[in-house]
């Protein structure tokens, strides 16, 4: 070590300044977000339905993911400006106060709950054809957001379940819509949560004097009751976050539960969140998703279309993207507003 240091002493000294510069652009992060094309991921690799194992599925159904770098380094920012397909925006105000790790936690929570939603919708639709299918769910209120002023910030985690709070007059509040009605007399209340390990804990949360809020955002989710479900399923840990795979997950699960093969040998991809009523919701990063699907040579791409008059309607944006990159959208880009729309389209392929 010593002889090498002696021998390369001058060289090392000269390198210090460029080394510091390179370290600076590779490590210092800035408050932007870089979105770039990602890839497609087959739903069957994520969710395995323990049913119809002999069924031959000739094509594939995949979700489309993009790369979203929150708070990129200077180098990633420069790469984003150089890439013809990447877009750069300011960091979302929702995420401003969160660390990148917390943003990832929210993203994975979105993914997990979207899989539950997909299971519920697909099983409910399949049950209409096959009465053997059994699906039940419970509605849970989960921690979805935390404000900087939240008491016990580090003790409450994203995804923890809200159990109850002792409200005014000792009233036990379990429904989140009642929280504001029963927290008027005091500024501090006892909240009870359950963490992912199943441990129940109670914390006293106070309202912030400036915002007059506790600082915890709770959101209701339908969670599959695994004790009664038939057929059972296995969900693998995902590296890809976000709820935008909902529609395609639902399609793939449904395709597994029914006898016919909706894929018709096609490589199907798409995007769109799934709601509990079976309707499809908007997603972000349309341009990057279209490019991702195109470079992955998918045969057709489902995209949410809810209001053609709305400038940022996903389908309208996607049409412009196709035009910009010379992609023939006819018969490739399929606008849908619900899961039923997508199923009807695929069933229609059979007839045509």
């Amino acid at each position: 070590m010593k002889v090498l240091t002696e021998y390369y002493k001058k060289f090392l000294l000269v390198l210090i300044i460029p080394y510091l510069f390179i370290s600076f652009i590779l490590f210092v992060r800035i408050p932007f977000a870089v979105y770039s094309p990602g890839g497609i991921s087959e739903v069957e690799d994520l969710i395995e339905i323990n049913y119809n194992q002999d069924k031959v599925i000739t094509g594939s159904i995949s979700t489309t993911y993009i790369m979203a770098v929150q708070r990129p380094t200077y180098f990633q920012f420069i790469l984003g400006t150089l890439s013809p397909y990447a877009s750069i925006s300011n960091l979302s105000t929702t995420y401003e106060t969160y660390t990148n790790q917390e943003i990832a936690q929210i993203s994975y929570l979105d993914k997990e709950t979207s899989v539950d939603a997909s299971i519920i919708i697909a099983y409910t639709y399949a049950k209409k054809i096959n009465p053997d299918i059994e699906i039940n769910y419970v509605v849970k209120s989960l921690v979805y957001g935390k404000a900087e002023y939240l008491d016990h910030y580090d003790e409450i985690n994203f995804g923890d379940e809200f159990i109850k709070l002792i409200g005014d007059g000792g009233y036990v509040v379990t429904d989140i819509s009642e929280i504001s009605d029963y927290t008027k007399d005091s500024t501090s209340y006892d909240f009870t949560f359950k963490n992912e390990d199943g441990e129940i804990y109670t914390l006293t949360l106070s309202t912030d004097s400036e915002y007059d809020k506790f600082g915890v955002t709770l959101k209701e989710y339908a969670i599959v009751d695994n004790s009664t479900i038939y057929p059972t399923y296995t969900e693998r840990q995902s590296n890809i976050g976000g709820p935008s795979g909902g529609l395609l997950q639902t399609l793939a699960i449904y395709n597994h539960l029914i006898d016919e093969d909706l894929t018709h040998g096609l490589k199907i991809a798409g995007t769109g969140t799934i709601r509990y009523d079976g309707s499809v919701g908007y997603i972000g990063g349309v341009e990057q998703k279209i490019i991702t699907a195109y470079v992955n040579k998918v045969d057709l791409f489902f995209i949410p279309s809810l209001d053609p008059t709305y400038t940022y309607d996903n389908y309208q944006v996607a049409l412009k993207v196709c035009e910009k990159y010379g992609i023939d959208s006819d018969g490739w880009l399929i606008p849908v507003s619900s899961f039923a729309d997508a199923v009807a389209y695929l069933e229609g392929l059979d007839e045509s």
Partner: protein
Amino acid sequence: MMKNDTWKLLAKDFTIKDILDSFIGAFIFASLIYAPIAIILVELITVFMYLLTLLVIIIIISLFVYVFCIYYFWYKSLILKKQNINTDIKKLFTKTAIITNIVVLVLGLVFLFVMIPILWV
């Protein structure tokens, strides 16, 4: 005198302490050079994910260079310590570096074609 290229002979020319000290120095020097390159390549993947296969191949090639750098600095360090030796270190290290790089290539291809499809769900 004809020089041989065996590890046994190298162990006779140098003490184990010298060989290990040179290796650690070489590893640190090569890593200092390679660390920014590795981070640059990883950050490239985060923005150019759609070129993943190409970028993983570039990472594998960069690892070849890293391995050669380690062996080069190791050789340099040993030569700087003692010059009158019977071992043909250059030949010995070149052979070993090639074998190491074959292992790197196999592991890289396994990672590319087996691990990524399994892990990236």
